[in-house]
Structures are given as structure tokens and as C-alpha cells.
């Protein structure tokens, strides 16, 4: 029951400009205060239920994000926060940017905006909760992401 109402989140800053990150932290602080529902920002992936990713993926941090995803126990939900995490955003053409987070790990919900407001992020977490509940009922497991994929060029 507690899983359905009070998920623990891990916040992963992937390639973000900090704009979305400070809004994610603002969700947890007094004005928006998600912590009153028991939503905790936890440091280690091994205790987390929801992975909140901000920013796009680049060639250096692609393995970091895959590693963190693999370490989260099932059932797990990935929430992409912001335009960059969803599609690559304003940076999608940059030479070092692979694209949105869904290029490397499966994403369950997206929060658009540059930057999204804290209300929108909380909405995203609430949407992620029902997905988490379904995954738990159906015993759906996230598949292990291989560290070496086609997106990493041979010279990287």
C-alpha cells in the first residue's frame, strides 16, 4: 500500500541545465512539499521506485544512466522531466547529444516544458504512481539495459 501512495524517487541529472533540477527539488521543499505524502528523494538507486530524469543523454553519461536504471529494483517507473529529457529539446541538434532519455532506457511518463512547473512535475509523479501500481499487479519487470549499445560510437 505504501508503495502505491508514497514512492521514493531518485533524481538523476543527466545533461541538464539545472533548470529542471531546481524545480524537482522545489517540489520537495515547503511550498509544494511532496514529502508530506512520504515522497522522499533518496540518494541510492537500490531503494528507489521512481527514477526522475532531467536533461538529455550524451556520450559520456550514457552508461551512468543505464547503470542507475539497472540498479533500481522492480517494479520501477522512469519519469522524464522537461523538454530535454523527453526529446532532446533545444539541444537535440548538438554534436554531443544523443537525444531524449527514451533513446537509451524505457520511459513510462513524460513531463513537457522548459522548465516544467513544480505542479506539472507533481502531476507526472502522480501519473507514474498508477503505472507503478499496474506494474506491481502484473509483475512486469524492467528489462536489463546492456551497457554497450548501438548509440555509443566505436571511438568513444
Amino acid at each position, binding site marked *: 500500500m505504501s508503495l502505491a501512495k508514497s514512492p521514493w524517487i531518485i533524481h*538523476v*541529472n*543527466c*545533461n*541538464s*541545465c*539545472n*533548470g*529542471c*533540477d*531546481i*524545480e524537482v*527539488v*522545489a517540489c520537495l*521543499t*515547503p*511550498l509544494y512539499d511532496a514529502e508530506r505524502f512520504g515522497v522522499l528523494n533518496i*540518494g*541510492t*538507486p537500490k531503494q528507489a521506485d521512481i527514477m526522475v530524469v532531467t*536533461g*538529455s543523454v*550524451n556520450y*559520456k*553519461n550514457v552508461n*551512468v544512466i543505464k547503470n*542507475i536504471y539497472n540498479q533500481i529494483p522492480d517494479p520501477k517507473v522512469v519519469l522524464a522531466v522537461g523538454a530535454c529529457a523527453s526529446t532532446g529539446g*533545444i*539541444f537535440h*541538434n*548538438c*554534436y*554531443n*547529444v544523443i537525444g531524449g532519455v527514451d533513446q537509451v532506457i524505457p520511459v513510462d511518463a513524460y513531463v513537457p516544458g*522548459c*522548465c516544467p*512547473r513544480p505542479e506539472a512535475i507533481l502531476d507526472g509523479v502522480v501519473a507514474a504512481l498508477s503505472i507503478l501500481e499496474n506494474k506491481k499487479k502484473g509483475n512486469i519487470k524492467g528489462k536489463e539495459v546492456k551497457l554497450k549499445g548501438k548509440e555509443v560510437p566505436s571511438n568513444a
Partner: protein
Amino acid sequence: MTTVIPFGPQHPVLPEPVSLKLEIDNDVVVGALPSLGYVHRGLEKFIDTKDYNQTTYICERICGICSALHGITYTKAVEKLFDAEIPERAEYIRVIVGELNRLHSHLLWLGLFADGFGFESLFYECWKYREEVLDVAERITGNRVIHSISKVGGVSRDLTKENIDMLLKMCDSLEPKIKDIEKVFVNNYTVKQRLVGLATMSKQLAYEAGTAGPTLRGSGNAIDVRETADWDIYKDLGFKTAVAKEGDCYGRTKVRIDELYESIKLIRNAISKLPNGDIATPIKGFPTGEAIMRTEQPRGEVVYYVKGNGTKNLERLKVRTPTFANIPSLLLMLPGVRLADVPIVVLTIDPCISCTER
């Protein structure tokens, strides 16, 4: 016998991915090796595909925390290429939004810093007060974090009478609250035990290491680009550089708290002197030549170099951000510090990795 401990890229204290390889002997750090590149997007190359007006929005997204000042510095550099006369009202609005940016950035840092040494209620207190600043910024510019107020030739939105009332009300209500948190940061016994004497840099060392911003001023160097650079408007507003003599984490905290008062004073003075008139001049043609612009960001001095070649795209854009200047000082401060104090010392330069790596 030394052990190497990886610190980051994913770490509970760090809001951003930076990796430090810490060499420790028992509990004391003897060496640190940073590894960067986790947030590199390649924005300076990106100007090939965007024209000089669109680049304003790219520059604002170099960093989400000091975004307004990135945009303002870039637009002022491009205006130098055009030799454009900017309406005075636009300059004042830029100062007001820039100082709002500094207020929210410093309150954010104070909160994260308090979290870094384990004072969670103080963290929440700072972030609660920060929301007041963000509310006003949202009312003025339309967004909480990325303000997009500055454009080449002026500003994109005017201040209304309502905005000015809101600003003054925010200044009045924020000042006593800052006094409250100042009491805790400056006088609290537990906080002082963690901060005083930690990672001390002498005045000479801080200058020679090439540090910038509160890291430099926390060691007694009264150097602030707002006072020295070619943007005169701050002199008219009665700006005074905040300095602390201590040179340790405590001194750098004191500088940032003093700058909060200074920002409030600047906003009040700018409002009282706010001239009437246009907010932007139309700028036509393509930029040629080269220009350098320096402004003081919350984290220190930022330098923009732009070079135009008569086409709609700039030929070169180079940004030197304050954190890039401060990271070498981190490597000087960390040896001799206990492992438990490493998060505090790393936070004390107010690292902004997405600025540094772009």
C-alpha cells in the same frame, strides 16, 4: 597507504554530475582528481545553426540557475558589435531581473549548503523564502526559472505598476527573513563548528589561483565586476562590494549573505531611479567585429567573447564561466580536509557544472 574513493557522478549531495577521485589517507584527503564532461552539450558550436537572435535563448540555457545573467551578458556583448544605444529603462530592467536572479541563486545555495552540513530545517527555510523571489520573477517575466527577459536591443517585457509594487513588497518582506537565517548561519554554534577554519585560503592564494566571485571575496579581495567593469549602471545605484576576511567556508557564506542585502538595496534603488521611455531599440543588419563583455554572476565573473563576420550566424562565441575559474582552487582546498567535510568544501565554491561544461 592511500585509498582512492570515487565521489560522484551520482551522489546524494551533488545536484549535478561531477566526478572527483579522492585519494584519502585514513580519513584525510591528500589529493583530488576531477573528471568533467558529463554535462557537455557543445553549445559554442551550436551557433553554426542558430542566428544571433536565437543564440540568446541558447545562452540562457547554458545554466538554469543564473540564466538571466547569461542572457543579459550575451545580448550586451552583441549590442557592442552593433554599437547600439540601448534605452536606459531597458538597462534598469536588466539590473532588476539580474538581481532577482542573484537573490534566488544565493538563497538556493544557502539551502543546499545547509543540507550539505546536515541542517535540514534551515535548508527548507531558505527554499521557502526563495519561492517569494520566484513568484515575483514569474509575474515580471512569465517563467519561474528561465526568464528570457533580455533580447538584442533591449528587453522583451516592460515593468508595470503592479510589478513594481510586488517587487517593493517582496523586498520589504524578504529583508527581515534574511536577518533570521543570517543569525543561524553566522552565530549558531553547531554551524560555526562545521564551517570556521575549514578549507582556508589566504588573500594572496585566492588571488593567484584565479578564483572568482564569493570564493575570491571570501578571502578578503574586494573584486567585483559590478564595481570595476564597463557596465556603469551599478555605480549609479550605489553598489558596494561585500567582502569577508576569514577566507574559510564561514567567510564565503558571510559574503553570500551580505550580497543578498546588497541585491535588495540595488533593486530598491533601481526602482526609485527607473526612467520612463522605450524598452528596446530595433536592431537591423548582421554583426561584424569582435567584443568582450563581463558581468558578475551569482558565482562570479562571467566573460563572453563574440565575433561576427557579417552573416546572420556569429563566427565565434566563447564563454568563460566562474566555476571554471574556481575548480582549480577546489584542488588546492581539498587536501588536508576530512572526508566528511568534502561535500561542504565542494559546495562552498557554488559549483555550477552545466555552466562549466556547456
